[in-house]
């Protein structure tokens, strides 16, 4: 865990930013398998995705300043599956939009492989909760879209479309339009479309929130399998703590407005996991206990303001 320069190969860029205080030292270990794992997760010399002191404030319609996110620091290793949970209105979706480059933070930086991002890039693909697919295109054309924008030649596009549709078990539906598919199938198309551009990082914004329980369980299994097959880095936002513990290597808990990292829970349970595993339930319990205060604050604000304290991410198109 030494950061002394002699341990870093000369060819690797040395991170310019100082080690992050706070968020790491507060990690809590949970689950029986977590024994022996260091509490402080050492970021490799360059994290796959790094958030540095991200703050974001809005001006509301009434003219008040609203601090949505405050000093968020997060280092995600390559190949890691990180889940972000928090009450509604904590800015967790906004955080993903920032990572996707669809929005800029008021202050702070988003780094990918140590370099600040320049707007959206196909190295980071965002999967939306719903409606992110293009209804005027067929399933195959949707999956092909990112590759077409990248200028990949047609034969290769076709090959990859087939490959990724098989991966999500939708090979038979390549000619269907989006409205002809069920909710679960749509999210599988979204996953295939995201994977087809071969991004290093998948950003998932409550992708299974609108699905029924059985479909969601099934997609959890599939996502876990795809993740371990492809070795992608996944940052997954959800309000469902069980889902976060079932999927993530690490669960980040955000506070309610302003969104700050409240705590971090490494999840060292063996995979494949299931939502019904007692260990998952136990671990989720711990996270939930801390989340409860934030939910109460969120509900209180909702009650006081008479409106849902929800901030829609992504101002511009």
């Amino acid at each position, binding site marked *: 865990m030494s950061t002394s320069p002699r341990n870093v190969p000369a060819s690797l860029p040395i991170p310019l930013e100082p080690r992050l205080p706070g968020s790491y030292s507060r990690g809590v270990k949970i689950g029986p398998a977590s024994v022996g794992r260091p509490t402080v997760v050492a970021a490799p010399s360059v994290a796959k995705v790094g958030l540095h002191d991200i703050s974001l404030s809005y001006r509301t319609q009434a003219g008040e300043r609203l601090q949505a996110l405050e000093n968020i620091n997060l280092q995600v290793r390559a190949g890691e599956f990180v889940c972000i949970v928090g009450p509604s209105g904590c800015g967790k979706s906004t955080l993903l*939009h920032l990572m996707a480059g669809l929005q800029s933070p008021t202050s702070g930086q988003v780094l990918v492989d140590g370099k600040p991002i320049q707007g959206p890039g196909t190295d980071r693909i965002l999967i939306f909760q719903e409606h992110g697919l293009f209804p005027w295109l067929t399933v195959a054309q949707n999956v092909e*879209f990112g590759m077409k924008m990248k200028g990949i030649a047609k034969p290769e596009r076709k090959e990859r479309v087939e490959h990724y549709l098989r991966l999500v078990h939708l090979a038979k539906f390549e000619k269907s339009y989006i*409205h002809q598919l069920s909710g679960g199938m749509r999210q599988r198309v979204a996953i295939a479309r995201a994977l087809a551009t071969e991004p290093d990082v998948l950003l998932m914004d409550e992708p299974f929130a609108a699905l029924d329980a059985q479909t969601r369980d099934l997609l959890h299994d599939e996502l876990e399998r795809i993740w371990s097959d492809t070795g992608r880095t996944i940052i997954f936002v959800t309000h469902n703590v069980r889902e976060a513990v079932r999927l993530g290597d690490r669960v980040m808990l955000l506070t309610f407005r302003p969104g700050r990292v409240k705590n971090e829970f490494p999840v060292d349970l063996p995979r494949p996991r299931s939502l019904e595993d007692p260990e998952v339930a136990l671990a989720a319990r711990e996270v939930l206990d801390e989340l409860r205060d934030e939910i109460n604050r969120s509900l209180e604000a909702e009650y006081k303001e008479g409106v849902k304290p929800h901030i829609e991410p992504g101002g511009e198109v």
Partner: protein
Amino acid sequence: MKRALRYIIFYGILLGAWALLAKLKIWPPYLFPTPWGVWDELYGGFKDHTYWIAIAVSMRRVLAGYIISVVLGMMLGLGVSSSEFLEETVGGLLVSLQSLPSICWWPLALLWFGLSQNAILFVVIMGSLLSVTLAMEDGRRQMPKIFGQAGRNLGASGFKLFWYVLLPASLPFIVSGLKQGWAFAWRSLITAEMLYMSMGLGQVLMMGRDFSNMSAVIAVMLLIIAIGYIVDGVIFKGLERHLQNKWGLAPAN
């Protein structure tokens, strides 16, 4: 089948009433043309190619004007909707300009372009440009933001974003505006042709007037209606139905 029958009955009655009134000879034929008189005009007009030529000339003019309007209008609409400042200033101006019948531009168009095709083109464009612009502006606002975000996220930007994402995403929201733009273009053209003697359906209609041939006037009116209906009811309806099928929207009627 039932529908076709209803049409036949309705138009049969209409035609029958017209024929009956003409047969009663309450008014002289030069005031109240007869159906067979109009039929003879139509037959003769197509036979000696007058109508074919007039239709071809008018269609060419309206298509040129309409296509320019659509391209310009889409760019303008996107531009205006891209900033709050433009939307408030230019957007407001466009809305107020829309109440101006495009033929009001005719005197200026004559001064600027002379008595030429370009003057007609200008009036046609002024007729439909505003509808298309406003429709595009509105469509961009109605279109779910998520499509633009997803497009940019998947690597589309600039023209590619417009062509592959924003345009198809906004089509269901602007198709009625495009239709309205067409209707305005068509009306502006006919009006301008009635003022400017150089072929086209409007001129043929005015020729009927000059010869006090009301049968010819009605025959050309029928042609104008028929073409408007074909474009509206066949081309735009087809486009709408196509979009509804793709998007899975419920049919409008």
